[in-house]
């Protein structure tokens, strides 16, 4: 797989003033709303520790909780399927649908189905898939991946959406008022929900002791998708398990506060069994999760509840947009999850970070995101996936900086260059620093020379 060049894609995004300014501002608003909400809860830090501990406990007893969950779900009348990878997940979903002659599937947003690339799989087999979440549908209609796990089209301006809708649902390309666009999407989507043969949702939390699942949305589209058609399929990553119903009291308090800075999502829906005359299927998906669980430094990332707080706070993400990460998961969490799927393809993502640590601080389940980014860099270097220039530069740096003599010679060269070279030479195209920044001025003498001179006096 070709390596995703985050820096190049980011540079393009940075060059588009209107988009970067809106994107940075909008996501920063989410971060500040989060801060305001969190300030209202004196025990917030305690909640984070508790949430992290519950997830830690569940993950270290995952097999037991999964079996308990399955037992209870089956007792509730749910049909439970197990998928070891994306391919198996897609095959199972397709089989459920085709056995019932289902041709139209409406679904709510699910990062897992993105991860499995389920939509193209089903569409190639004659099944129409409709995303009912507004942002997700915008992305589907524009044939793009979601750029954010909570607000999938946040990189688009309303005028961009107007163009997409004009092309795909025939609205006026100059009509970019948000209520009008949302209403237009509603008008084309509601009839499809009524006609649908099957509905699909993801899952935010799967409760082992009840065998039930909880789905959190703001548009109510998951409830429509799950409740209108006779067949409901829920795709569930195996890391979504929590042991007890009471633990929802911790996570539900944190999810939307962290994500959007609202106390709770508009809809928090609990599904436990099929409706009378209907069917409910769970597809429990591994797709690399148990392998990640076995990684000493990285298993912690499975605690993620997909709130997107790390993306909202990340100064790099806000200025490069989710699409520049080239994977299902973007931002800081993407930098540590995507490499577990394909190290070569995503080897540059851990370098799309200043290691500032803000992501770790906002994470409601205390994933040490920036420390994992640091660790991933070591793995990328060990596996020799660093770009050649960087690898060579680090080798030279290591030699020069470990030799006082070479170091002093290099300092002299640098200071002389900055002091003596004409501007045109100094700011040559290879000087990446100098493209948008002035170089520091060369001092009269280095600190070391000053110190030696002083010692002589």
């Amino acid at each position, binding site marked *: 797989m070709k390596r995703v060049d*985050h*820096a190049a894609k*980011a*540079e393009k995004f*940075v060059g588009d003033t209107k988009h*970067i300014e809106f994107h*940075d501002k909008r996501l920063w608003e989410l971060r500040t709303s989060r*801060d305001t909400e*969190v300030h209202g809860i004196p025990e*917030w*830090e305690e909640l984070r520790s508790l949430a992290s501990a519950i997830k830690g406990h569940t993950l270290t007893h995952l097999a037991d909780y999964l079996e308990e969950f399955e037992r209870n779900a089956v007792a509730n009348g749910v049909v439970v399927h197990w998928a070891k990878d994306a391919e198996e997940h897609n095959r199972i979903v397709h089989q459920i649908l085709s056995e019932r002659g289902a041709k139209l599937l409406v679904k709510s947003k699910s990062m897992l189905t993105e991860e499995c690339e389920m939509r193209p799989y089903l569409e190639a087999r004659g099944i129409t898939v409709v995303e009912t979440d507004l942002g997700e549908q915008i992305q589907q209609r524009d044939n793009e991946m979601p750029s954010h796990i909570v607000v999938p089209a946040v990189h688009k301006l309303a005028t961009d959406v107007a163009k997409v809708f004009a092309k795909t649902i025939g609205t006026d390309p100059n009509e970019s008022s948000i209520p009008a666009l949302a209403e237009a999407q509603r008008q084309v989507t509601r009839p499809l929900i009524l006609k649908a043969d099957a509905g699909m949702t993801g899952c935010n939390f799967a409760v082992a002791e009840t065998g039930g699942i909880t789905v959190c949305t703001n548009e109510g589209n998951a409830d429509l998708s799950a409740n209108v058609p006779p067949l409901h399929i829920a795709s569930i990553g195996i890391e979504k398990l929590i042991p007890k119903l009471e633990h929802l009291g911790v996570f539900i308090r944190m999810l939307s506060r962290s994500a959007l800075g609202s106390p709770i999502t508009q809809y928090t829906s609990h599904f436990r069994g099929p409706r009378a005359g209907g069917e409910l299927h769970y597809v429990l998906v591994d797709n690399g999760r148990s392998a990640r669980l076995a990684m000493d430094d990285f298993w912690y990332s499975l605690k993620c509840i997909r709130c997107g707080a790390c993306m909202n706070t990340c*100064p*790099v993400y806000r*200025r*490069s947009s989710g699409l520049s990460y080239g994977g299902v998961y973007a931002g800081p969490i993407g930098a540590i999850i995507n490499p577990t799927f394909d190290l070569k393809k995503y080897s540059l993502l851990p*370098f799309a*970070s*200043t*290691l*500032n*640590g*803000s992501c*770790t*601080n906002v994470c409601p389940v205390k994933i040490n995101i920036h420390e994992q980014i*640091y660790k*991933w*860099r*070591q*793995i990328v*270097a*060990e596996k020799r996936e*660093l770009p050649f220039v*960087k690898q060579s530069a*680090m080798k030279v*740096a*290591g030699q020069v*900086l*470990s*030799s*006082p003599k070479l*170091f002093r010679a290099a*300092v002299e060269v*640098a*200071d002389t260059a*900055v002091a003596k070279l004409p501007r045109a030479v100094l700011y040559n195209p290879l000087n990446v*620093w100098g*493209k*948008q*920044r*002035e170089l*520091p*001025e*060369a*001092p009269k*003498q*280095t*600190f*070391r020379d*000053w110190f*030696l001179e002083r010692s002589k006096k």
Partner: protein
Amino acid sequence: MKVALFVPCFINAFSPEVGIATLELLEKLGCEVDYPLDQTCCGQPMGNSGCEKEAAATEELFVRNFQGYDFVVSPSGSCVHHVRDHLTACEQSHQARAVRAHTYELVEFLHDVLEVREFPWAEFPHRVGLHNSCGTLRALRTAKMSEIEEPFFSKPLALLKHVKGIEFITPDRPDECCGFGGTFCVTEAAVSARMGIDKVRDHQRHGAEYIVSADSSCLMHQKGCSDRLSLGLKFIHIAQILNGARA
């Protein structure tokens, strides 16, 4: 008290005045300060790039240069963070562990170890924006972080408030990373510069004359952005203000 001064590579080469201010200040406060002459760098550029193998010899040299002192003090938060938390490429000998435990960033050394609160010689009659680098703020924990629910504290402010005439402005995003990030500043140059530009404009909008920080690398990057835009902002290290610089 035997103190070794660590002047990181880029401060030695480009901002000697920061090293000078640190040395003079420590001496004013009664420390006996050594400057080991064979010092180079802490190994952070290689370490942050994931290149542990390439960092090992530099880290070994760092330990050799700085072993045997009561304290190692440096006017650079990110370098101290590397020594304390990431000096893992070298052998974790008794000496290495001791050096790592005894290395302090200047502000925390003044605040926590020397417990200085008076700087009678210091006067800085200017409007300044304080830039807490991510290294000092989130790694060394020298101030309250905006993301965390904790009582307010700020070691740099606790020191600076004793400087006569100083006035502080508050930018909209005081905690936001300025985008230097080590090699990030060249490998992700576009994003890095944009972050720097946003940072200096935020300070300027709120009327800062100076941006002050405990990290010269952030200052070098921000100054580069500000000068290119001719914003007229000035940049100064906290050591210089505490040592009595007037402008």
